[in-house]
């Protein structure tokens, strides 16, 4: 039995999403929505049905929704689509999909507090620059620590100080835990990814409130109103919508249940592991993430031992080779190197049980004790 506590990496598919996906991987459901015949029309209808469901959940008009190949593509489209129009700002704790896009566009990163929230004074100073930014990108909830950003206040400041700037938010980690329509209401661009909330991998969406404000970066056959060319991933899009529909319905109960599990997990580990420190303030975080820094151990070794003990965990950050690296998020938060080396992210989701938490409460302290006692 494996205790899967890496839902922030990917969460198991919801049965409803699996059914919806498989319907378009079947003998009948294979059409290309761009065609002009009955098979194509069936596929087109599935995409447009999905668009309505997803747009409604995100508080957007169907015409403002662009389906993509996932969160990374959505983030790239948002940043690259604004880079011709002026400087770009983002927080220093963004996911690499935003951070690297902003770097590639020659943009600037903003400081965060020790609690992981954007430093609003730094934001104000940057907005006051001679050339106003074209885009400010601040994530809804952080993928490593789970810290939620004060997006309303950030958007308010941007509107006052730099009215021509658009605001993008990477909401990839937020959808399970907060109502995306209200959490991202003021943002001009919103990224989501299906596999983080029970849909299939490789499909996502970007809300674009004002299409004229975003340059097209994926050219081709003109799908998605010319904003993202390429044959639709019909099965994936159907699965994304089905998963989101379930999450919308169950969110309240899910958040309550998972928050209790997470609190029991985090409190238990903080009690049983001397020196362990929780990252960020609990009240700022989404329900599904328990992030600790454990002095005297290395994440890589800890995760290896947890894997052997049947607990799937993460350090929260990895490079292309699969190697663990000290997280830029923790660095930006000013977490001391010695603590950041022992980062552990246990992320919970809709399938997490008391048994999973019990397994981690047993395995993590044992692994830490072993690593600390090793010669």
């Amino acid at each position, binding site marked *: 039995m494996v205790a899967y506590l890496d839902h922030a990496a990917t969460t198991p598919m919801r049965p409803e999403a699996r059914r919806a996906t498989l319907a378009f991987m079947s003998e009948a459901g294979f059409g290309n929505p761009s065609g002009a015949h009955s098979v194509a029309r069936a596929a087109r209808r599935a995409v447009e049905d999905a668009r309505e469901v997803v747009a409604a959940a995100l508080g957007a008009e169907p015409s403002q929704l662009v389906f993509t190949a996932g969160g990374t593509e959505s983030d790239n489209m948002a940043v690259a689509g604004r880079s011709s129009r002026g400087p770009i700002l983002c927080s220093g704790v963004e996911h690499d999909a935003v951070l690297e896009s902003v770097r590639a566009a020659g943009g600037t990163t903003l400081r965060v507090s020790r609690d992981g929230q954007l430093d609003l004074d730094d934001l104000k100073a940057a907005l006051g620059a001679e050339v106003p930014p074209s885009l400010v990108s601040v994530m809804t909830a952080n993928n490593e620590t789970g810290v939620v950003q004060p997006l309303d206040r950030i958007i308010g400041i941007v509107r006052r100080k730099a009215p021509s700037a658009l605001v993008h938010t990477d909401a990839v980690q937020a959808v399970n835990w907060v109502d995306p329509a209200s959490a991202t209401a003021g943002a001009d661009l919103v990224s989501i990814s299906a596999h983080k909330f029970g849909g299939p991998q490789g499909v996502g969406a970007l809300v674009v409130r004002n299409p004229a404000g975003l340059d097209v970066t994926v050219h081709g056959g003109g799908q998605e109103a010319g904003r993202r060319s390429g044959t639709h991933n019909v099965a994936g899009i159907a699965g994304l919508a089905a998963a989101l529909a379930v999450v919308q319905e169950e969110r309240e109960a899910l958040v309550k249940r998972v928050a209790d599990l997470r609190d029991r997990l985090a409190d238990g580990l903080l009690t049983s592991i001397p020196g362990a420190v929780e990252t960020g303030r609990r009240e700022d975080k989404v329900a599904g993430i328990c992030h600790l820094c454990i002095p005297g151990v290395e994440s890589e070794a800890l995760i*290896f031992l947890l894997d*052997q003990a049947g607990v799937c965990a993460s350090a929260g950050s990895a490079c292309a080779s699969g*190697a663990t690296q000290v997280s830029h998020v923790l660095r930006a938060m000013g977490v001391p190197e010695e603590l950041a080396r022992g980062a552990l992210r246990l992320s919970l989701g809709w399938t997490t049980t008391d048994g999973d938490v019990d397994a981690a409460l047993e395995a993590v302290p044992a692994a830490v004790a072993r690593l600390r006692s*090793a*010669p």
Partner: protein
Amino acid sequence: MRVLAAMSGGVDSSVAAALLADQGHQVVGATMKLWGGPSDSGCCSVSDVDDARRVCHQLGIDHHVFNFSEDFERHVVGPYVDAHRTGLTPNPCIECNRHIKFDRFLDRALQLGFDAVATGHHARVEARPDGAAALVRGRDGAKDQSYVLSMLGQAQLRRLLLPVGEMTKAEVRAEATRRGLRTAAKPDSQDVCFITASAGRTAFLGDRIELHPGLLVEAATGATAGTVEAIELVTVGQRRGIGAGPDGRRHYALSVDPGAGRVTVGPLEELMTDVVEVGPWTWTAGPVAPDTPASAQLSAQFSAPLSAQLSAHGRPLAARLESEGRRVRLAQPTRRVAAGQTVALYAGDEVLGSAVAV
């Protein structure tokens, strides 16, 4: 046994892991991520990690990646750069073995509950009659890598498995081909993994330290014989860029002193020597008290004649130790060994220890 196999993504370590799994050991593969910069192949590009991972998939064993890049920078790259700054010619592969593969990686393995580590080096670990673990040349003389392991001691050798040491390189490749491993035809790694063939040592060091011009000074006369653009890039024994003497005979770098900005140069016969001065020894089996190996003791102790190997691909040269072990006396003169290079001492095919030339 539970064995952690260090897998570089090359053919030797692939076959090493395969053989151990066949022998019934519980094998886990691990690739060390050492270098984030550009690399020709070395051991740490993403594609090498992918190769190692795919081989593990084929063998049905788990694969992990350990990020030791900070340790690599601290113990290998940094000292390599510093050594060049001070006119030494370091051997980064040996320092990597000393500080990373057989220290950091071995410690990690023991910490995680493994009994031993394995690598794909062409060398052998054998039990000596006195119970010590002996490090012995690999069966394929042309591919023998015992020299780069010569700094190991009992603490490492007792926990080290070298399964391809009994095979020739051709046999290793044939075995990889037979198993359909994707690394079967992969070229051998070359030279220093963190220096690319295209940019080279000059660009690498030039990015990290200030390079200074130097004077070429004739050893015999003290006369200035020319200049070099970057004294930090000159190695003892180097001929390229050193020019010729007044008689037209080729000159070689005899010694390098970056502090004074001088390279002493001279003809080949002045480069030849039968003495290598060395720092303290590390002994594989430590039968001789450190730093006080009387040559008589050593010779009597081992039935095989003593020899020294002065570079990774060098031939063994008959040798004895003098001056409390701080001097290696060679039976035949050879080209001077640059300070910073490793000298490995053998009795027959067995490695006795290693020291760094000063």
